[in-house]
């Protein structure tokens, strides 16, 4: 159940790769599910007007019941620029948690595939699904090495390893992260994941979903569209599924099985 809260910003940190981390002060909040998101707005006047959607990147629950939220964001436009210049101690309006988050993987291994800032929801997901038995891998793609946000702070549970893909070959695999996903699936047929989680640009997610479908692996995607309300009312984030029905990303997503959007075929 979402609530609207004014929360103090505890820190604004450089997260590497041109991204930044907003750490909120602990507050009496409902704990989110990984993959859920918040509509966030800083203490400015009417421009920018709307709050901006950000996935919960990580959160901590304290003994006193308070929750500390953390967002990871890439500065791409006016809203994110202003958030980046916010001063620690200033206040954010935070509406959430919103939407549907990730589910537990059905088996003992799962891969996370991130396109650029699509890495944002995965720290929280890893915290939630890591077990001693589970092999978790992270595949991160970016145009170039300099655009990859740091992941050392949450890499400990990535027992399946981290692989990087860069379009320009400046680090790791030379190519898109979807190419990397495909080649890794070929390579590692013995350890086919029970679930693939994908977050990134729309076209990248569609391509990743197709790869997973071919391989018969369940694929969750975290969809994105310009959002007005985050609550299902403005109808701004609605996309058309392959069935020619509407899918409201903010309430039916952002996380959904890829087949709901792109394919009749059930991966099972």
């Amino acid at each position: 159940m979402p609530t609207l809260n004014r929360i103090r910003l505890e820190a604004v940190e450089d997260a590497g790769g041109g991204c930044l981390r907003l750490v909120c002060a602990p507050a009496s909040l409902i704990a989110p599910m990984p993959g859920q998101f918040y509509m966030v707005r800083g203490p400015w006047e009417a421009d920018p007007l709307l709050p901006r959607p950000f996935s919960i990147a990580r959160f901590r629950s304290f003994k006193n019941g308070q929750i500390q939220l953390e967002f990871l964001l890439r500065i791409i436009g006016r809203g994110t620029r202003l958030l980046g210049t916010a001063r620690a101690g200033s206040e954010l309006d935070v509406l959430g948690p919103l939407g549907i988050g990730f589910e537990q993987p059905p088996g003992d291994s799962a891969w996370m595939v991130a396109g650029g800032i699509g890495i944002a929801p995965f720290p929280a997901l890893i915290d939630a699904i890591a077990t001693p038995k589970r092999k978790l891998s992270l595949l991160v793609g970016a145009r170039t090495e300099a655009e990859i946000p740091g992941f050392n702070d949450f890499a400990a549970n990535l027992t399946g390893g981290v692989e990087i893909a860069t379009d320009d070959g400046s680090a790791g695999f030379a190519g898109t992260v979807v190419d990397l996903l495909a080649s890794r699936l070929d390579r590692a047929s013995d350890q086919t994941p029970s679930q693939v989680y994908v977050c990134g640009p729309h076209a990248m997610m569609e391509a990743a979903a197709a790869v997973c479908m071919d391989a018969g692996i369940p694929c969750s995607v975290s969809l994105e569209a310009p959002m007005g309300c985050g609550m299902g009312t403005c109808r701004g984030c609605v996309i058309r599924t392959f069935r020619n029905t509407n899918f409201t990303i903010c309430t039916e997503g952002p996380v959904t099985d890829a087949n709901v959007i792109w394919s009749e075929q059930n991966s099972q």
Partner: protein
Amino acid sequence: MTADLSVRIGDLTLRNPILTASGTFGYAAEYETMVDFNKIGGIITKGISPEPRLGNPQPRIWETESGLINAIGLDNVGVEDFEQSKLDYLRKIECAVIVNFFAETAEGYAKLARTLGAMAGVDALEANISCPNVKAGGREFGVDPVAAAEVTIASREATNCPLIVKLSPDVSNIGDIASAVADAGADAITVANSMPAMAIDIESRRPRLSFGRGGLTGPAIRPIVTRLVYESAQATDIPIIASGGASTWRDVVEFMLAGASVVQAGTINFVNPRASVEMAEGLETYCRQSGINSLTQLIGAVDMP
């Protein structure tokens, strides 16, 4: 002592003059956990059409300086599903339920007005004759006094339910249209709707919205709408409902001084889902502190030079 903030639209009495605007509050249930419906005058549903509509493809919204352009394309469940799946909830909430609707012809408006007006739980109707975001969204009715009157007469004859007609802002003389609609039997007039607008992505050279154009809403347009409200109030005696850019209780008072009896909270719901309640509470406090015990002391009270 609390001020009496109630207002009347035809037979309908609103607890206070704050409504949530069509298309910005869904079918109310979405905000159940956030908004105490007891605190506002009423809610206006998303625009209902004879058939369900999927609306336009992505992208549907684009933000501009202090404004929002949308071309949702009147994505709505249609009148049948509205009755079946949305109305039960709306019957339970304790504020007025106003159904916004549109059709492609005057007969279409009449038919829908008859159907919706007869539904238990529907307290009033708002005929949208001003949607810029679909090929046939009634806009041609909203910019012409004769056509606006026709739609009003047709809808009026079809139902006894209080009838509000929602006008277009992009006209040279809104007073003419307001008085035509009033004479044709509307109980109130909503002034206005989103302003026809456009934004272009200079990289792709395509409009920011799939539909090409869209409607501009939000604080950016409030000064224009304030003027339209003033002009409409000069032209007619039926209640004016302001819609365009209201964000705080101060804006509510401003609209009322200009001549509005009721004010809609629209885009601001996206910025702050509790905005409508905060407006109502702020207005109440303001009236109490200023010794205003009837809204008639505010409505149209601007001291023009």
